[in-house]
């Protein structure tokens, strides 16, 4: 036994020795690279933590934006991909601090508590987190949340959907009363509820008789389940489908069945040329630029930053003219201008009812706590103020004419 101990020790020593030689060789090579002529000593360094890699449309959306923003502003960046929502996230943040990052960003909801821990440990580093809810109550100067008013994008996409329904009604394919849409959602969270409600209200603004059914899959990425849910909705008589989940499941089900689809997270036109109408997505580039610029100029980043149509954070893809109804582009442009000008509000209390009556007051759960205690009045001046009291959505009202076929919580 003693003999083998010695042997293993020697082998490991050998590995280390070989390693050190490689390391030295590597270090010598690395140094000149770091002194790139374009980078100064005071160049900022940004660290990114992503839940998955480019294979997920969700993370790809962040990765592409991060690369664009960093290149444009000439800052260095390090990306750590496939970081799960556990202590590995804190370890990744630790390591990014070690690498000299001035800003560290994480893209997934479940990263939040680990980012907060890291922010407490390294007060000199800025920590930014997308989709989180706790920055405004944690009281940390170096921790902030960000999101975008994607409900506005979905509202605009909803207009395209409503116009398509109108076109099909006019063509005599079904009656106005039969105008039912289907929606495939991931989970029954405020983020998804806010999304499908705004989409529905957009459609309703042009097609008043519209109704909707929502089917949840219980996963952010499950191609088979999303496809199945979309097919079930179509068989249920839904004339148009939209989705809030990250796979191609719903769009492909629509293409197979020949049912028009309003997509999310980017265009699906190449795969679904005969059914794709339009898609909304969040462009994170403006936020990344804002975050970097703030740190560069020594300014504080807001606890909550909400990207809007105006900041260029909420965008629609090109409209597929061969599927979309005539005049869709004009109607969207018109509504977009009104939304930006503040003349139009997505969650206008006059446009929807709950249990048959319009809402005049609603206390939402804005400050995260263990029991989901509602704490803030969010209906003022006749509309629901989404993403104003914090960036992450908190609209979680189940309004009339939208039927949930099931629910799914994590």
């Amino acid at each position: 036994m003693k003999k083998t101990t010695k042997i293993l020790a020697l082998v490991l020593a050998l590995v280390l020795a070989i390693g050190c030689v490689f390391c030295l060789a590597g270090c010598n090579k690395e140094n000149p690279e770091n002194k790139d002529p374009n980078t100064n000593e005071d160049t900022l360094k940004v660290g990114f933590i992503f839940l998955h890699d480019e294979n997920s449309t969700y993370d790809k959306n962040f990765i592409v934006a991060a690369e664009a923003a960093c290149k444009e502003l000439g800052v260095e960046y390090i990306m750590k991909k496939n970081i799960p929502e556990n202590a590995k996230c804190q370890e990744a943040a630790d390591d990014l601090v070690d690498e000299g990052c001035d800003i560290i960003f994480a893209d997934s909801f479940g990263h939040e508590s680990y980012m907060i821990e890291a922010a407490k440990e390294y007060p000199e580093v800025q920590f930014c987190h997308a989709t989180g809810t706790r920055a405004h109550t944690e009281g940390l100067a170096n921790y902030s949340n960000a999101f975008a008013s994607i409900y506005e994008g979905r509202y605009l996409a909803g207009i395209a959907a409503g116009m398509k329904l109108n076109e099909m009604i006019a063509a005599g394919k079904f009656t106005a009363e039969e105008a039912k849409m289907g929606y495939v959602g991931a989970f029954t969270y405020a983020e998804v509820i806010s999304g499908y409600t705004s989409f529905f209200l957009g459609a309703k603004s042009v097609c008043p008789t519209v109704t909707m059914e929502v089917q949840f899959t219980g996963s952010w990425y499950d191609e088979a389940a999303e496809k199945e849910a979309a097919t079930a909705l179509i068989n249920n008589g839904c004339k148009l489908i939209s989705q809030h989940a990250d796979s191609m499941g719903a769009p492909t089900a629509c293409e197979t069945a020949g049912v028009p689809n309003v997509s999310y997270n980017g265009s699906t036109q190449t795969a679904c040329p005969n059914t794709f109408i339009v898609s909304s997505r969040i462009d994170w580039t403006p936020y990344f630029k804002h975050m970097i610029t703030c740190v560069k100029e020594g300014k504080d980043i807001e606890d909550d930053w909400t990207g809007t149509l105006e900041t260029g954070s909420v965008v629609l893809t090109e409209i597929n003219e061969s599927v979309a109804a005539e005049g869709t582009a004009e109607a969207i442009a018109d509504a977009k201008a009104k939304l930006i000008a503040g003349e139009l509000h997505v969650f206008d209390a006059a446009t929807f009812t709950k249990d048959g009556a319009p809402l005049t007051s609603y206390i939402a759960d804005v400050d995260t706590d263990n029991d989901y205690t509602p704490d803030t009045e969010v209906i003022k001046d006749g509309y629901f103020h989404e993403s104003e009291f914090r960036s992450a959505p908190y609209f979680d009202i189940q309004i009339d004419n939208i039927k949930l076929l099931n629910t799914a919580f994590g």
Partner: protein
Amino acid sequence: MSKSASKSHEPLFHVVKRASIPLWQSLLIRAGAILAALIVAGLLTFFLTGLNPIDVYATMIDGAIGTEKRIWNLFQGIALLLCVSLAVTPAFKMKFWNIGAEGQALMGGLAAALCMILYSDKLSPAVLMLVMVVTSVVSGAVWALIPAIFKAKWNTNETLFTLMMNYIATQLVSYFSYKYSVPKGSGSIGIINSSTKIGWFPSILDQKYLLNIIIVVILTFILYVYLKHSKHGYEISVVGESENTAKYIGINVKKVIIRTMILSGAICGIAGLIMVAGTDHTIATDTVGGRGFTAIMVSWLAKFNPIMMFLTSFLIVFLEKGAIAISSEFDLNSSFSDIITGIIIFFIIGSEFFINYSIKFRESKKEAKSK
């Protein structure tokens, strides 16, 4: 045997068990294995990605020991893996195939986490810590005791039994992480007592992982002495070598099995405690993260010697940390670093074969004739 038969049936080579092997020879075999692994992995890297293998290895080493913090993280990783490996070792030495360390550690961690959630405001921090230690150790031990009793009484298959206990533990954790999730419904507990740090292991000398490392170092030495120099340790070896011999010399085999599994589970419980109170400060189904299975390899490679297990777990954690660095530095998919780690471990395990066996090639015809 006729001449023609011997000609057609003698294979090109055959394998012979070695009686013993000189030190220099086994050393040469192991060094050769690692060198061969590095060359194969290097060639694969070059042909698949076009990267310079030397750069890749340099990044690997930098990722594992490049900064002070990384060295701390490396030793923390070793401590966690080593702790689970220590836990499975007494059972393995007894030839009780406990592949349920994952579940046993998870139960220990779950107990600690539940104590932190339920009793933080009811007990003083010191008492809470004591309760956490006791419940973790007991939970881990109970999770190991159940299959041990079934094995001792009814000779059930411990491999399947301990494996299935893992799934039950995972589901229990899943249930509780839904029940106590923050925010509600999110299915994850999040950091427990983030502001008060009640139930967290304290930092020593400003190092948050130092206490974990110290605990595991002490455990390593205790287990080494227990296995090598105590009567219990001797009994474990005898039961492992031959149950009949053990019975013949008057060892109560059932008692040894149950006692040893309680020990194995208890150490798993400590590992779970360290993971929850000393590292993650939360519990999730992936808290143990496969260490319960990696530990089996660590223990076997070290031939059940706790001191040597430090070296094997060092090797595995070193490779793992290095592999993570490779995938982020060169923007490679994380599967690629798994491939490299896999190749290196494959060669190291493979070299054991050549240390235990030698290969005899077929003698040439001339020699055969002269015989």
